[in-house]
């Protein structure tokens, strides 16, 4: 054959390593390959590979799906031949610290697997500290497992006596993505919608075929699209145990759940109970359902961001269960005191040892996996300040994990967003180690905007910083480092923020002691629901004002699921434990609060239409083009004369159209309880002011569709009602 025309059939040549070399009780084996970690389908069988630095013995435990007892237990070892003496010699299937073995003739679909390990130290008893917690009686879940079974259907009580409650399974990753790839929408164009998979469609009003699932969420894609968001940020979808909480609601006696899911069982496995196909117990199908959701969101132009929790695991403290990490290598995976107690920077019992090189690699492998196998577009890191602590808990100036993620080749284009604080008191908003890549949840935006919105004095200067993308915090990083939000899952909904002064968390069963106390909320004159039409009108206006502040600020806006239809949690600002109407999106609100929904949708479209609102770099306050106008100019009731005084509650700014190849955009905020006349800055010759939104005007004149804004009859000034906001465009 001529080399240039030869077609290699090496791909179909039978591999040498597809033949077993060893046997254990009739099961054929071979020394496996250490990489990749986890269970991988290979020619003839499955390659199992697991790391432990401290274990001195490991055996594989195989179950038929759901079986109470394993059908095989296979040590990672076999008979080799001594090269010198040619005598038979027992040797481990291990290279370095990695046990690996191929088991032949397995049907990957019908089995579950785990490990047993032994190592130094006595097996630590419950409640006692221990550097090592090896215990041959525990079957341990693979930290790299791509599927976890055991909680296949949400909320169904498991067999609490199961010897192996969360079971590792094997996934075939050959989903047909067709032409789908991560969208790579420039971050300044994102409008993020923070949502809970189950919460989106579990409510009876959702009218989807499979309520509360990935597939149910798929049916709501048209809604998201019409709302105008282009990124959905999902609360944790890594496998967690919603049943880990065994408390009851003291008011109703209902069971309380780990509903939010900030307690990871398996970092590489999607939550089976979120899949409509979860009940089938087929981990590959669960993966397929989630991938199909991602694919269809992408088709609709919507990115997928995952809220990921790498600061702790579901294993808890000394009193917690041994499920995986701590039975495999406690000292490697967790931050421990010298006595072997768990450090608790997460507020949940333990702290993952993220800057240990092994754990760091696991986090990197995990994110690579989600980016490449699930086409995920970005990650939001829960309590990310923990990821910058060294193994003894001290904050690092140059944390290797954060640097690795920022420069990782596979993660090269994904969005990295930090919740830049932790429960151990490390608060890094504005100072999170960013490497030019990381953005942050801007907690100061939330606080400043809430204070300004409710009319606190002395906040005009701060508000001016927030609408510019917080240059005080991100001077060297630009406004795209700022994820702007007023509400998130943690805290009041927007409706509750304008309806309650105090949190009302009695249903959480902690005597209203849980949840934040500094909510910067204002009930508009009455605590909770009221028939008072004036109060309700004010609340409605305040919610619209909030949407204007959020969506006209530089930086990346994020809104909370349901805020666009005034979803309420009855004043509960910490609903982590409720699997009920308190957390579920009530779709009847779409009709009931159509006015607010329409307002929010038009605002997202306004933002999309105006590049002046989505700058990559900070505005300068100077005329850098010779347009005759600064790129941003500040105003008050008198044009060109902002009122920075302590008692001022008014602020207006104008974005020069020429600087952003856009219309001129003028935004005025009157958070005073009186009407004010605002002088409008004079536009360049030939341009006229057109009103896009005025929350002081009655619906439907509160907001217009982009492109249909009516020209203002009076171009020199405008009346602004109490606590109202205005957007006019000059063109």
């Amino acid at each position, binding site marked *: 054959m001529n080399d240039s025309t030869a077609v290699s059939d090496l791909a179909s040549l039978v591999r040498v390593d597809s033949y077993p070399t060893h046997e254990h009780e009739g099961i054929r084996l071979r020394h496996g390959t250490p990489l990749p970690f986890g269970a991988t389908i290979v020619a003839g069988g499955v390659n199992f590979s697991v790391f432990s630095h401290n274990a001195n013995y490991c055996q594989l435990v195989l179950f038929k799906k759901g079986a109470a007892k394993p059908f095989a237990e296979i040590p990672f070892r076999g008979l080799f031949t001594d090269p010198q003496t040619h005598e038979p010699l027992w040797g481990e299937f291990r290279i370095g610290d990695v046990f690996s073995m191929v088991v032949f003739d397995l049907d990957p679909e*019908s089995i579950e697997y785990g490990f047993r390990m032994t190592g130094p130290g006595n097996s630590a008893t419950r409640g006692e500290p221990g550097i090592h917690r090896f215990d041959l009686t525990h079957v341990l879940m693979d930290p790299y497992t791509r599927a976890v079974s055991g909680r296949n259907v949400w909320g169904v009580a498991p067999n609490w006596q199961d010897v192996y409650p969360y079971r590792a399974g094997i996934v075939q990753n050959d989903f047909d993505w067709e032409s789908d790839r991560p969208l790579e929408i420039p971050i300044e164009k994102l409008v993020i919608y923070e949502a809970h998979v189950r919460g989106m469609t579990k409510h009876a009003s959702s009218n989807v075929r499979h309520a509360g699932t990935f597939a149910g969420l798929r049916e709501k894609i048209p809604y998201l699209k019409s709302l105008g968001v282009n990124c959905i940020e999902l609360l944790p979808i890594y496998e967690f145990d919603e049943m880990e909480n065994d408390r009851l609601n003291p008011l109703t006696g209902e069971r309380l759940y780990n509903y939010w899911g900030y307690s990871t069982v398996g970092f590489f496995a999607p939550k089976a109970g979120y899949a409509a196909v979860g009940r089938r117990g087929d981990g590959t199908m669960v993966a397929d359902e989630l991938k199909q959701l991602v694919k269809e969101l992408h088709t609709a132009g919507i990115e997928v961001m995952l809220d990921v929790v790498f600061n702790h695991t579901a294993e808890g403290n000394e009193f917690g269960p041994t499920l995986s990490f701590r039975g495999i290598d406690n000292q490697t995976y967790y931050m421990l005191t010298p006595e072997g107690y768990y450090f608790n920077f997460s507020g949940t019992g333990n702290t993952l040892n993220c800057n240990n090189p092994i754990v760091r690699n696991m986090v990197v492998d995990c994110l690579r996996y989600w980016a490449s196998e699930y086409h995920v577009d970005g990650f939001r890191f829960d309590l990310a300040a923990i990821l910058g602590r060294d193994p003894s808990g001290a904050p690092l100036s140059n944390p290797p994990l954060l640097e690795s993620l920022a420069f990782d080749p596979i993660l090269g284009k994904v969005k990295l967003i930090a919740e830049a604080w932790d429960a151990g008191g490390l608060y890094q908003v504005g100072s999170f180690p960013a490497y030019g890549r990381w953005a942050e949840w801007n907690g100061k935006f939330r606080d400043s905007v809430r204070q300004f919105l409710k009319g606190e004095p002395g906040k005009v200067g701060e508000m001016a910083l927030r609408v510019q993308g917080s240059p005080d915090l991100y001077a060297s990083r630009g406004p795209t480092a700022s994820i702007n939000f007023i509400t998130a899952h943690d805290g009041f909904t927007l409706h509750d923020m304008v309806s309650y002064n105090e949190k009302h968390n009695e249903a959480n069963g902690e005597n209203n002691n849980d949840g934040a106390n500094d909510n910067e909320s204002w009930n508009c004159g009455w605590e909770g629901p009221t028939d008072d039409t004036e109060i309700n009108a004010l609340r409605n206006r305040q919610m619209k004002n909030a949407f204007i502040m959020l969506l006209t600020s530089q930086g990346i806006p994020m809104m909370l699921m349901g805020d666009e239809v005034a979803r309420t949690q009855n004043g509960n600002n910490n609903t982590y434990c409720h699997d009920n109407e308190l957390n579920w999106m009530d779709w009847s609100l779409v009709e009931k609060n159509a006015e607010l929904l329409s307002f929010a949708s038009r605002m997202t479209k306004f933002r999309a239409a105006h590049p002046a609102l989505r700058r990559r770099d900070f505005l300068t306050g100077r005329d850098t083009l010779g347009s005759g106008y600064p790129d941003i100019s500040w105003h008050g009731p008198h044009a060109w004369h902002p009122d920075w005084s302590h008692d001022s509650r008014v602020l207006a700014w104008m974005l020069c159209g020429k600087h952003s190849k856009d219309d001129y955009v003028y935004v005025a905020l009157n958070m005073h309880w009186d009407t004010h006349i605002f002088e409008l800055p004079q536009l360049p010759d030939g341009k006229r002011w057109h009103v896009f939104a005025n929350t002081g005007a009655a619906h439907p004149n509160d907001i217009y569709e982009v492109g249909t804004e009516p020209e203002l009859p009076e171009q020199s000034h405008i009346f602004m009602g109490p606590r109202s906001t205005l957007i006019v465009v000059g063109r």
Partner: protein
Amino acid sequence: MEIETNSVDGIAVATIIGDIDGSNAAAAQSQILTLAQTCTKLVLDMSRVSYMSSAGLRMLLASYRAIAGKGGTVLLAGLSEDLSDTMSLTGFLSFFKTSATVLEGVGLLK
């Protein structure tokens, strides 16, 4: 699991009898891929399949890829509602034409 093949109005029809999972998907696949070498239009009669695991779904999609690669079409006839739902949830359904019966499917492919 068994597969019976025949031809209706010149169109290849394969009837799958029994559930398909990891234990038999490879065998089913090799039979269907063999058949796929000789046709560009294929009807798979699914009316006697009550369950397919993820391996079964992959067997179907590989058949589609083999035939679509030469410009052909695969049609699934008589899918149960349950199976159709599972295929829709996991993204497999959209690759295929479907029909209620084999005869109807043959009519669609002719």
